[in-house]
């Protein structure tokens, strides 16, 4: 049996049903542990004070905001190449989740920005590219909503996702070209841990895992909903013709 079998809607519904509670359970566990640990059992930063703790929401959200788009890109490619309905629906399901993650990152960043930089918003390259990502999500979702026929919508949004990805990368370079900015550099690379010391690092990883599980769970849940909607439509169509 090939791995694609799992992408059959019926199979998908079957295997996700038992998996879903596990994923959500894991997400809840990780988030509770990570956030409680992070908020109550880590010292305040010597420079930033307790505001540093917003990192436990900010960084995981930012991380999965980007990864959601990458997942959508992969799912779109699978749809275009192999035409598995579930992958198109998974891409559709991931978009609002990614949008929410983007919003969380933007909001927590804005809240964090006030004490750190003295402003809620600055046109820093990283912030700007996140705003652009937000716009891509909006457009992608709007296109899904606007098209009646589900297969057409899947095709068109896939094309948009692929072309959009190229331009998202171009935009990232463009805003870098533009100025240097205030925002920290990447501090989550595994080899160097300059900005984030060990005490913050461990709960942060747990939070990231929690967000990851939450993301997977939400996408699976939403995909299941989308499949149900499609099934309903198919049944309705059949009933109408009867």
């Amino acid at each position, binding site marked *: 049996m090939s791995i694609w079998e799992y992408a*059959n809607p019926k199979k998908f519904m079957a295997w996700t049903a038992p998996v879903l509670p596990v994923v959500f359970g894991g997400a809840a566990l990780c988030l509770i542990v990570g956030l409680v640990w992070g908020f109550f059992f880590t010292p305040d930063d010597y420079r930033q004070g307790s505001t540093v703790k917003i990192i436990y929401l900010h960084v995981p959200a930012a991380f999965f905001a980007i990864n959601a788009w990458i997942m959508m890109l992969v799912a779109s490619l699978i749809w275009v190449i192999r035409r598995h309905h579930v992958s198109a629906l998974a891409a559709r399901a991931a978009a609002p989740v990614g949008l929410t993650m983007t919003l969380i990152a933007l909001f927590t960043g804005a809240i964090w920005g006030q004490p750190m930089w003295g402003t809620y918003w600055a046109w820093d390259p990283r912030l700007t590219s996140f705003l652009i990502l937000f716009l891509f999500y909006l457009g992608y979702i709007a296109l899904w909503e606007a098209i009646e026929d589900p297969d057409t919508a899947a095709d068109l949004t896939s094309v948009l996702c692929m072309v959009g990805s190229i331009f998202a990368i171009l935009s990232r370079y463009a805003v870098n070209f533009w100025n240097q900015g205030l925002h920290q550099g990447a501090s989550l690379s595994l080899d160097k841990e300059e900005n984030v010391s060990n005490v913050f690092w461990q709960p942060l990883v747990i939070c990231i895992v929690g967000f990851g599980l939450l993301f997977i769970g939400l996408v699976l849940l939403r995909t299941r909903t989308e499949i149900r909607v499609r099934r309903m439509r198919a*049944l309705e169509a059949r009933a109408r013709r009867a």
Partner: protein
Amino acid sequence: MLTVQDVTCARGGIPVLSGINFEVAAVQALILRGPNGIGKTTLLRTLAGLQPALAGKITHPEDEAAYASHADGIKTALTVEENLKFWAEVYGNPIPESIWQAFDLADLQHRIAGTLSAGQKRRLGLARLGVVGRKVLFLDEPTVSLDGFSVRLFADWLQNTHLAAGGVAVIATHIDLGIDAPELELTPFRVASDKDGAADEAFL
């Protein structure tokens, strides 16, 4: 020249006609009959390659088909001649001089297409078929809005110019065109509503 084997065609993801088989030889036309909503437009679009067939096989000579839909594709800001010339260029042909007579457009040649009456516009739309130089025509209710005289004009052109030169035509129409061609009643091919085969079948 045109063979259709066991074709199923769908509209909006729902199959409407299935198991269609026919063959049209050169110098022949086929008239599609059936009540409104049976799927004539859907079938013609499928034959013309605008949408994929859910099942079955359609064969006709490569690059020899042209399609005329309910809509005419006429640019109201261009003159009648400019409209025809555009299509002639797209298909890489000259405009045959006889076309103006054949579709009674001689008087209208330099009129802006937007000022034509419904039937005159339709004649222009049909004249396009005379410039594309294609052997296989798929025509969707070509005579809508035409008066009796124009219908005969069109039937004559189809019979004596297009078909006589070895062409083929599949025509959906509700009226009697007055050309002698076999008719295919589509009602028996309607997809029974409880049958499988929808594009969304995978979800059921």
